[in-house]
């Protein structure tokens, strides 16, 4: 089982600030997914990264996959209250299952 370490565990910022959250492992990922979960709901996929060094953008969110495919980051520019939620990274084992990190809880205050 791949162990995924997410940091920070909790982040509280003001609207308009920038932030970066991280997902790290000692293992190489075949692919990595980022999900966002809002209170009372299940996680929803934001992006999947597959290639080492890959960068994907989703509006104000930028996702990067490390060159060695052992780490990933999520950068949010000019955070808004609607970005509040739990951000989870998940690694595909290649054997039918996904392993999730413990998540980063983001709170964006107006």
């Amino acid at each position, binding site marked *: *089982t791949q162990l995924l370490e*997410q940091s920070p*565990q909790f982040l509280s910022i003001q609207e308009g600030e920038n932030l970066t959250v991280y997902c790290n492992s000692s293992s190489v990922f*075949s*692919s990595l*997914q980022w*999900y966002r979960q809002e209170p*009372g*709901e*299940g*996680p*929803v*996929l934001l992006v*999947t990264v*597959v290639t080492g060094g890959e960068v994907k953008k989703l509006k104000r969110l930028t996702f990067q996959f490390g060159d060695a495919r052992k780490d990933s980051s999520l950068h949010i520019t000019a955070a808004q209250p609607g970005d509040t939620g739990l951000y*989870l990274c*998940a690694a*595909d084992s*290649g*054997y*039918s*299952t*996904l*392993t*999730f*990190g*413990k*998540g980063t809880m983001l709170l964006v205050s107006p």
Partner: protein
Amino acid sequence: NAGVTQTPKFRVLKTGQSMTLLCAQDMNHEYMYWYRQDPGMGLRLIHYSVGEGTTAKGEVPDGYNVSRLKKQNFLLGLESAAPSQTSVYFCASRPGRRPTNEKLFFGSGTQLSVL
């Protein structure tokens, strides 16, 4: 298209009682999963299924059983509930045509409290 539907949404049990959580998906997905989510612990895989009639253990299977008699349904059973099973339970599915890179579709969860 309802996606992934979990029932019930909330349940309170006494220690030792049994119950079954139902997950239904209408997307013709092959793969289905049961996760539990506890504060600070992320999502942990309980059991999963890669097709009708098949099941496999995940990371935390003890105290749970599952069945996949029909492709669209995945049942999670607690035979004798314990307070340690108080958690939010999520069901998820994915097509299974390409096991890697496919996204998971999640239900909205079941909040279970065991007193």
